[in-house]
């Protein structure tokens, strides 16, 4: 099966391969897929306090199309708000990379990875916010 030029280009020179500190409160990590299915994607987003994605890193176990899909979305999410990034769909990824029907699942995985990373970040933020809010509420009552 022939790969599109864009898939080849991302596969040969993948953007933003790497690891961010998953314990950093500003980093959200999404790990999707399964080794048994032949593809696993890990996408990490570093989000500023203003809610802008400042950095993105990925590591992918999968075919060339899966690697290209993850590489592409790391480029796309940078500079976007969480809300904007959450709107990226697999259709856009598949179209940009001209993925054939048998490779559509790779783009689905990339969309899932963004959503999972955002969800992880929001969970962290909520966990951070909750003790503070609770403390504030306690202070209220005392007063």
């Amino acid at each position: 099966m022939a790969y599109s030029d864009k898939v080849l280009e991302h596969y040969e020179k993948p953007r933003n391969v790497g690891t961010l500190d998953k314990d950093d409160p500003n980093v959200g990590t999404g790990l999707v897929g399964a080794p048994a299915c032949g593809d696993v994607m890990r996408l990490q987003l570093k989000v500023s306090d203003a809610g802008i994605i400042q950095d993105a890193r990925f590591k992918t176990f999968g075919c060339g199309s899966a690697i290209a899909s993850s590489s592409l979305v790391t480029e796309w999410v940078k500079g976007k708000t969480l809300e904007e990034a959450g709107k990226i769909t697999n259709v856009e990824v598949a179209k940009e990379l001209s993925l054939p029907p048998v490779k559509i699942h790779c783009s689905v995985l990339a969309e899932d990875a963004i959503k999972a990373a955002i969800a992880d970040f929001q969970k962290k933020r909520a966990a951070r916010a909750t003790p503070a809010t609770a403390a504030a509420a306690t202070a209220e009552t005392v007063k």
Partner: protein
Amino acid sequence: MLKLPIYMDNHATTPIDPRVLEAMRPYLAEDFGNAASRNHSFGWKAEAAVELARKQVAALIGASDKEIVFTSGATESDNLALKGAVEFYKDKGDHLITLKTEHKAILDTCKRLERMRQERLDELKMMRLSELADRDVTPEELATLEIKFDLEKDAVYQRWVAKVRTGARVTYLDVKKDGLVDLEQLKAAITDRTILVSIMLANNEIGVVQPVNEIGKICRERGVLFHSDAVQGLGKVPFSVDEAKADLVSITSHKIYGPKGVGALYVRRKPRVRIAPSIDGGGHERGMRSGTLNVAAIVGFGKAAELSRTEMASEAARLEGLRDRLLKGLQSKLDMLVINGSMEHRLPGNLNISFAYVEGEALMMAIKDVAVSSGSACTSASLEPSYVLRACGIEEDMAHSSIRFGIGRFNTEEEIDFVIELMGKSVTRLREMSPLYEMAKEGIDLKSVSWTAH
């Protein structure tokens, strides 16, 4: 001088040996006669060429030339052997035994034979249910009415079933972890209704060589036919139809440096084995396979068989040397490699390795100057990796990480060294990109992670 791309997928097909091409050339040009033309020199010349090839092919497997039926290739030979024996011996029995790791030409033929029997049974069910219900029964009602009228206990229906002579029942044997058949399991599977056992000589993915001589002995003792798809082992490992006590053997030309589109089925004469033909027509090949013979291709097949026979010993030693050089080289550069299938009972030119935490298709992209195969199936709709590796109990993730190297007659040491270098670099690069490799290095047990299957 190293020439790219390098062909190292010799289980898929092999290049034509120049000596084979030379032998074929006249029969593609001036010697164009029909081997069945008995009344002029054009026909005689073609017939003589075919008969010489028949002897050459027979000699490679220790057979007599009268036992060779030329076909279009091993897929046809497999179909002819199984369907032909099932049809001819339908009064003797209706049961076949094969392996889960057989080639699709065997497995899909078995599936069709099972389906044919099931369709016949369904027809009988419909007829009997129409009688019992005293009205026309539709196929959609079959499942419910079958239970309502308890056909399993219906004496009339059971009497009909005993008379069914269409298709077959099939037992698919598991293999051991090293890919070899369990002979005790085979013995236990043979019943008084078994007509044929079909077990390959060597596997096309993992190159594991089955103990065909022991299998043949068991079959002969139990009075069942032994068919072997010998495509991958032919000309690579010693094989004789008499030592293996084989009754039917499928072989093909294009895996032994001959042309595509020609193969043969060996059909034993003593004791005589019969098969019903699949293709009817002019009665060529003693009525077992009609159709004008592909003279040039048959001549090429014969020449290829002769070369394989005379050069097998030296070639096997050379291929084994190259294979071991490849393995040692890879092991010196990379950790976490797993060899799939028995190393002891294996084709000399085969190496099937899983490169843990790297996906096979991505790896093939990285080594695009080297033609190999992968057990990964990221392209198939089901995403199911190799059924052969799965049957050997290899985990799916490791099956997705597998690469099959098929080293052949024209591969050189220089090519092997190039592949070692390239594989070392590519696997390392892809592992640096693999979240699984990072997790494994951190000591995370990947089996403990709850993955999101998709």
